[in-house]
Every structure is written in structure tokens, then in C-alpha cells.
């Protein structure tokens, strides 16, 4: 629907409006829209710009008042401090000094490498659990009619709404009772439980749209329902499966509440680790911003892939384009 200065359908209108059908009205309308675009997108994009710019400033420039909008002296100081302090805390500094003659010493301690490894362990584990359990359930829920199906679907949908803050206290009690406190297994199971309803809904959407004729063809070839599922549907669902996995990955990568309450410092994943760091060193914002950028990279890579599934994933398939 193009909005030209001259509306091609103008002649059909019974009541011409000033805003659309006069020259001055068009100018007012266009400049208002331009201004609106500018304001809205500045609000969204400026914080991102600010994070990137801050990461490339020197510590001295960060403390200037008023702050500089463009870095006067771009430097990689922030990134270097993050990398060095990770190497030092993980004990690689001796190795680098002996083999390359590099002196590594850092005044701060953030071990971003360990945080990322911990997070990867948790996210991949949770993603796989959600994927394996969720896909099978989605297939049955999509293909078969049985008693209690609507109740199960509603229950899964509702269980997407509660995790996080509403159940953090009883979850702590449960994990303590199970003896899983301060283990990554606890987080893997919880994140798996949080994301598998997502996967069920997303994959059910895929199976619902899947052409029946292919399923029938495999049945005529004497496939059991399981074989149909495993040899026919799963290979064809590859893209949806990858998208589901990335959704589970993103959720687990970003989750703060359970990671903060169920782990100790030594086992922290990325979100609570970064939080501790921000609160300990909030004068050195260039280092914080550099660390933030490093841990945001996997998320941005994931976003590029799942963009087309995003709305479906967020609404459990209720909103389709």
C-alpha cells in the first residue's frame, strides 16, 4: 500500500480529508511520520550504539564529564582486559609467558571463558532435552486424537507463563531436597522443563502443516508410526528442529533468576557472572561493555537464523504471517 502524494484512489472518496488530500496536509503528515521514525528508532538503537562505543573507549575517556558521543581515541583496552583477566584466572598466564613471552597481568577478575563454558554446558543440555522430549510429544499431539489432549495442550501453554520469578522460592526448596543445589544438572533440568513446552508448540505447528500424503506413503511402505516419525518426519523437519533448539538455547543463555539462586559463584553461568562483575567494577564501563558484547555474540548469531520463526515461537504458533 504505497502512500504517494497523490492518492490514486482519491476520486472514489466521498469525504476528502485535509490530511490526505491537500498539499499542506501531505507535508504535515510526512514530516510527522519522519519525526516519529527518528524518535522511535533512536530510542531502540541508541543504547546498542552506546554499548558498542563504550567498549571502544579508554578508561580515562569513560570518566569524562560530559560523556563523549563519538570515541576520541578508539582503543581495544576493554576487550584486552576481559581476555587477559580470563586467561589469568583460568591459569593460562604461565603458559603464554613461557611460550610467547607475553606478560599477562590484570587488575580485575572476570573469568568470562569459564562462564561461557558453564553456560554452554547448561544451554546445550537443556536444548537437547527439550528437543528430544518435545518433538515426540508434538508428533503424537498433532497426529492423534485422545482423551485429555486439550487439557495437556493448555497445561503446557500455561506452564510457559510461570517459570522464573513466580516459582523461584519453591524451586530452591525442591532442588535442595533433591540434593542438586549448585550443580549444572539442576539448571539443565529446569531449563529443559521451561523450554520443552515451547518446542512442543513449535513442532506441533510444523506437524500440523505437514502433508498427509507423505505420511500415508510411508505407511503403505509398511513403516510403523515410530519409523515414519524417525525416518520421514524428522529429516524433513530439520529447519524447525534447529529453530526450536536455538529458542531453547536463547532462553537458557539469558536466564538470570534460577542461575542466581541455584548456583554459587564458582559455578555461575553467564548472566549471574556478568551481574556480579557489573556490580563489582561499575567504574570501568568499557570493560563491562566489552564483556557484554562478547557474551551477546552467540545470541545475535542465533537471531539471524530464527528470525522467521520468531513470532511463531513466542506465541506458540498462535500468530502466523
Amino acid at each position, binding site marked *: *500500500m504505497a*502512500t504517494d502524494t497523490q*492518492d490514486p484512489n482519491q476520486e*472514489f*472518496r*466521498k*469525504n476528502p*480529508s485535509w490530511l*490526505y488530500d491537500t498539499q499542506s496536509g501531505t507535508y504535515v503528515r510526512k514530516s510527522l511520520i519522519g519525526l516519529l*521514525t527518528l524518535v522511535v*528508532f533512536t*530510542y*531502540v538503537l541508541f*543504547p546498542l550504539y*552506546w554499548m558498542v562505543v563504550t567498549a571502544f573507549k579508554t578508561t580515562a575517556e569513560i570518566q*569524562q564529564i560530559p*560523556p563523549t558521543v563519538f570515541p576520541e581515541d578508539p582503543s581495544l583496552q576493554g576487550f584486552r582486559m576481559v581476555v587477559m583477566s580470563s586467561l589469568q584466572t583460568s591459569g593460562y598466564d604461565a603458559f603464554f609467558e613461557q611460550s610467547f613471552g607475553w606478560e599477562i597481568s590484570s587488575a580485575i577478575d572476570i573469568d568470562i571463558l569459564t562462564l561461557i563454558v558453564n553456560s554452554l554446558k547448561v544451554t546445550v543440555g537443556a536444548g537437547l532435552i527439550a528437543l528430544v522430549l518435545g518433538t515426540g*510429544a508434538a508428533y*503424537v499431539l498433532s497426529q492423534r486424537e485422545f482423551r485429555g*489432549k486439550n487439557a495437556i*495442550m493448555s497445561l*503446557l*501453554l*500455561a506452564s510457559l*507463563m*510461570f517459570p*522464573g*520469578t*513466580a*516459582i523461584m*522460592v*519453591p524451586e*530452591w*526448596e*525442591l532442588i535442595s531436597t533433591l540434593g542438586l543445589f549448585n550443580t549444572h544438572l539442576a539448571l539443565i533440568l*529446569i531449563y529443559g*522443563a*521451561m523450554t*520443552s513446552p515451547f518446542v512442543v508448540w513449535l513442532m506441533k505447528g510444523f506437524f500440523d502443516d505437514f502433508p498427509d500424503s507423505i505420511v500415508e506413503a510411508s505407511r503403505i511402505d*509398511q513403516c510403523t508410526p515410530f519409523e515414519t516419525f524417525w525416518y520421514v518426519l524428522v529429516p524433513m523437519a530439520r529447519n524447525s528442529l534447529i529453530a526450536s533448539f536455538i529458542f531453547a538455547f*536463547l532462553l537458557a543463555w*539469558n536466564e*538470570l533468576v534460577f542461575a542466581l539462586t541455584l548456583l554459587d559463584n564458582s559455578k555461575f553461568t553467564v*548472566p*549471574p557472572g*556478568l551481574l556480579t562483575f*557489573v556490580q563489582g567494577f*561499575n567504574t570501568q*564501563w568499557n570493560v*563491562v561493555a566489552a564483556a557484554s558484547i562478547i*557474551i551477546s555474540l552467540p*545470541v*545475535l548469531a542465533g*537471531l539471524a537464523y530464527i*528470525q522467521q520463526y*520468531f*513470532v511463531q515461537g*513466542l506465541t506458540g504458533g*498462535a*500468530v502466523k504471517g
Partner: protein
Amino acid sequence: MSYVDNAQASYEHAIERVPDGVRVYLPILPVMSLVGVFILYPIAQAIYSSFFDKDLLAPAEAEFVGLANYAEIWTSETIHQVLWNTFVWVAVGSIAAIVLGFLMGWLLYEKLPFTSVASAIVLIPWVLPRVVGASIWQFMFGGSQGIINELLVQLGVIDEYIVMLGSTELSLWPPIVGMIWRLAPLFALLTLTSLQGIDEHLYEAARMDGATPWEQFRYITLPMMRYNLAIGFLLMLIYNIRNFSMVWVMTKGGPGVSSSTLPVMIYRTAFVDFNVGLASALSMLLFVVLLVFSYYYIQVYDKVQGEF
């Protein structure tokens, strides 16, 4: 023995023996048990704990106190302040995110080129790790070097830098601004997707009948999007009311409880004051509100999809 029997592995014989009415539940069982143990059971546990005076560090010495925790919610000034904060947060945050998100979605659909690239960029605030987004805003709102203070001074709104995050009157607002920044893109994408789903021919027909662009919007666009907007609205409410990270990173709910919302209060009660009983009672409040929201969510969902 027919060739079909040969083709089947032994575990399939075992599955064959399960009556068909029960067999369909087998693939659903793992998901349901995981969800049951880690999401539904804790809710039941919270109901139970809310009737006890329980210390986080000594859960064995719990003492039954009946409705005393709920009575404390009813009388405590502090908790009333927190509930009011939560109400302001959800109302302002959701409405602003919806208005802004709708505008963004509409601009993306109608006015801007490169829709798919632009919408990916717009989505970054939503997918960015919560702590990262919140700490950017904490830095921008900072009292000594914050860019927002500088901007307000330049605009003449204030005379000198003020410590917004540390002031009892103002500290609620910076996290709301941050939260709107995070949620608006999500609503924008919902809007964009629903706009793309509307049939062009409807607009053509309306133009033939002499509809102005406003009338087209009012009588075609809005009615066609009503369920999607309802889902978006409920998602905004849910995400706003259960948000923890934005407040916790920026202000820790302080000073005092001036910026605490319900989730932050639950965390502080349980893990700072170690009062599990009261925290569970507060969780029940949050839980009931979420239950109402998700009931309507499922209702709308049913309308969109028909039967599951």
C-alpha cells in the same frame, strides 16, 4: 512368522502389548513429568509453604502459622508500596510498550525499506541477554557520567546531574524505561507479522468504496488484527509483571523498596531476609495474577486456532 515381524525390533513388540489407548500417552509422558516435577510441583509446594513460618537456612524447623503470612501482606505498609509499584510498572510499561511497538511495527511494514533486515535489528533489544540490556541502561542513567543526565541538562529539563537510580521518588522509572525498550520490539514484530497476514484485496475493495486511509485502518486493519493484538497485550502484561532482571540489575529494588516490584520483593524476602513463608505467600499473589492472565491467553488462543 511374517516378514513384518522380522522387520520390527524387540522393543517394538513390547510397545505393541501396551493397549492402544494408553500407548498414545507414552511419548507425552517424559515432557509432562519434567514439567510436572520442575514447574507444577513447585507451585503446589509454594501453596504449602505459605502457611508456615519457615527460615531458608533451617527449613526443618518450620512452624505452622495458618494465614499469618497472608495477614502480613494485608497489613504491611512496605508490601503495599511494592504492590502499588508493581501496578504502576505493569500499567505504564505495558501501555507504553504496546503504543510504541505498534508504531514501530506499522512503520516497519509501511514506511521503511529492507523490512526483514530492519526487523532483525529492531529485535536485538529483546534477544540480548537480560543482564546486558539492563546494565547498558544502568550506565546510561548513571548519576556521574550518564548520558541521559547530560541530555536532560542540554535540553534544560534539569540544571545539574541527579542520581536518579538512588532517589526514592525517581528510582522506579529508569527500569520501566529500560523494560519498554526491551518489550516494544517484541510487540513491533507481532504487529508486523499480523499486518503482513492481512489480504491486500480488502484494502483495494475498501478504496473502491471510498474509504479514507483512517477508515481503512479502523475498519479493516484493527478488526483483522484483534486476536494477535490481544495475544500481544497479554504477553506484555505477563512479561512485565514477572520481570526481575531489569530492576535487580539497575537498582536492586532500592533505595528502600522504592523501586521494588513483586518479583524483586519475593527474591529479597526469601534470599536476603530468609523468610520463605512470606516469600511463598507473595509468590502465590504473583501466581494468581499470572494464572488469570494465562487463562485469557489460552482463551484467545482457542479462538485463533479453533480446536487444538
